[in-house]
C-alpha cells in the first residue's frame, strides 16, 4: 500500500455518517481512492454500500462528515462544481437503470446532450455513441429498446452510457449481481479492460469474491457502518478474524 499512498487521492471520505430516522447505516466511514486504482468494497446486504456511493454523488444527503472529490468538497459545491463532479464520476446502478422509454441510442445520448461542459454542443452524437457501444461490444443494439435486451446486455449498455462521458472515476454498484457466472466474468473483464484503456479509477461494490480477486488493487470491508478492514485481496483472505473470513469462505 505504500506505493498507492504516494499517489494522488481522487476521492476522500472522512467520518461519513448517515441515519435513516433512528436507523444508523454509516457510522464514521473513511475511504480514499487513489488515482488509477480499483478499490473493491464488500459488505453484507443492507450494510449501506449503495447508500455510501449514493452519498458520494449527492443522490443521498449525508448527515455528517466530509466528501472530497477531485479537490472539490461536496458540501460546498456550487452548480458548476456539481456538474464537473457528475461529468467526471460515472455511476453504474445496481439495476442498470436504463431509461425504458428511450432506445439504446437515446439512452447514450442523454448524458451527452446534458453535460455540455466537457464536449460542448454536439451536432451528431452517433460516432461517440458507436464508440461507447464498441467498447462494450454491442454496436448492433443501437436501435433496440431496453426491454429487448437481456440482463447482461443491459449491464453493458449501462456501462456504455457511463463511459460515453469519459469519466475519470467510475462507481460500480454490484456490476455482476443477478448474472450467470460466465456473463459476470465477461463484465468483470470488460471493466478491467476499460480501466486499463481509459486509466480510470474505480470503486466497485460487489459480493462476488471471484470478481474481487480478479479486479481489486485494494479492498475495504464495510461492517457495522465503518471500514472494518482494509488491504489487498491476499491480505484480507489470509486474515483470521471471523468477521473478515465470513466474506471469503464460500
Amino acid at each position: 500500500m505504500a506505493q498507492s499512498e504516494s499517489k494522488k487521492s481522487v476521492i476522500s471520505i472522512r467520518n461519513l455518517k448517515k441515519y435513516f430516522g433512528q436507523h444508523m447505516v454509516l457510522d464514521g466511514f473513511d475511504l480514499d481512492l487513489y488515482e488509477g486504482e480499483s478499490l473493491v468494497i464488500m459488505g453484507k446486504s443492507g450494510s449501506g454500500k449503495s447508500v455510501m456511493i449514493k452519498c458520494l454523488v449527492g443522490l443521498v444527503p449525508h448527515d455528517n462528515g466530509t466528501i472530497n472529490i477531485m479537490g472539490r468538497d461536496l458540501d460546498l459545491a456550487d452548480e458548476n462544481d456539481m456538474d464537473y463532479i457528475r461529468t467526471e464520476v460515472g455511476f453504474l446502478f445496481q439495476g442498470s437503470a436504463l431509461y425504458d422509454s428511450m432506445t439504446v441510442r437515446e439512452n447514450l445520448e442523454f448524458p451527452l446532450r446534458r453535460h455540455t461542459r466537457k464536449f460542448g454542443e454536439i451536432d451528431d452524437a452517433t460516432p461517440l455513441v458507436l464508440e461507447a457501444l464498441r467498447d462494450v461490444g454491442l454496436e448492433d443494439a443501437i436501435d433496440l429498446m431496453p426491454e429487448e435486451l437481456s440482463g447482461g446486455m443491459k449491464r453493458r449498455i449501462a456501462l456504455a452510457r457511463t463511459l460515453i462521458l469519459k469519466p475519470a472515476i467510475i462507481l460500480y454498484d454490484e456490476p455482476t449481481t443477478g448474472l450467470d457466472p460466465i456473463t459476470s466474468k465477461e463484465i468483470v473483464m470488460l471493466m478491467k479492460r476499460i480501466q486499463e484503456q481509459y486509466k480510470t479509477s474505480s470503486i466497485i461494490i460487489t459480493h462476488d469474491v471471484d470478481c474481487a480477486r480478479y479486479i481489486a488493487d485494494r479492498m475495504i470491508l464495510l461492517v457495522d457502518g465503518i471500514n472494518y478492514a482494509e488491504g489487498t485481496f491476499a491480505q484480507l483472505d489470509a486474515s483470521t478474524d471471523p468477521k473478515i473470513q465470513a466474506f471469503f469462505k464460500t
Partner: protein
Amino acid sequence: MILFQSWRQNISDFLEETGELAFFAGRFFREVTRRPFEFKELLRQCYNIGNRSLLLVAVTGFIIGLVFTLQSRPKMMELGAEAWLPSMVGISIVREIGPIITALICAGRIGSGIGAEIGSMRVTEQIDAMEVSGTNPFKYLVVTRILATTLMIPLLVVMSDFVALMGSWLVESIKGDVSFFYYFDEVFVSLDFADLIPSTVKTFFFGFAIGLVGCFKGYNCKHGTAGVGVAANSAVVETSMVLFIIDFVSVLVSDLIF
C-alpha cells in the same frame, strides 16, 4: 378508544399528505420559471396525453350527450318545454358534465399512467440516473407533465363538450327534426360569459391537479414494484377527490363573482 386513535391517525396522515402535496406544488412553481426549459419533452408529453385520451374522451362525450338528451327529452315534452332542451343540455354540458367527466376520465387514464411511469422510474433508479446525468429530474419529468396536463385537459374538455353536443343534436334531429344550425344557435344563445369563463378556468385547475397528484404519487413512490401499483391507484383516487373539491370551490367562487 381504538377507533378514536385510528381516526386521529387517519387525520394526521391526511394532513401530512396534504402538506407534502402543497410542498410539491410549491417546488413546481419554483422550478417552472427557471432555466433550462424542457420544451421538447413538454411537446412530447402534450402529444402523448392527447394521443392517449382523445378517442376515449370523444366516445364518452358523445354517448353522454346522446344519453342525456334521450333521457331528459320525454320529461321536457311532458312539461311542454322541449324548445328549451338545447339550452338546458348546452348549459349542463358546458358548465358541469363536460369538464368533470373529461377530468375524471383523464384522472383514470393519464393520472394513473403518470403515477405508474414515474413510480417505476423511481424504483428502478432511473430518476437517480437522470440526476447524475446532469438533468434535473423534477424539471424534466414533473414540470413538463404538470404543464402538459394543465394545457391539454382544457383542450380535451372543449372537444368533449363539442362532441357531447353533437350527440345531443343527433337525438334531437332524429326525434324532433331539429336542424344542426338551429340546435347550435339555441345552445350558443343560451350560454353567456358567466357560464363559459368559470367552466373554462376550472378546467385548467383540473388539468393541473391531474398532473400534480400523478407526479407526486410517482415521484414519492416507495421502493418495490408493489409501490408502483399503489402509486398509480392512489393517484386516481386522490385526483378524483381533488377534482370534486375544485369543482365545488369553483361553483362557490363563480357564484360570488357573477
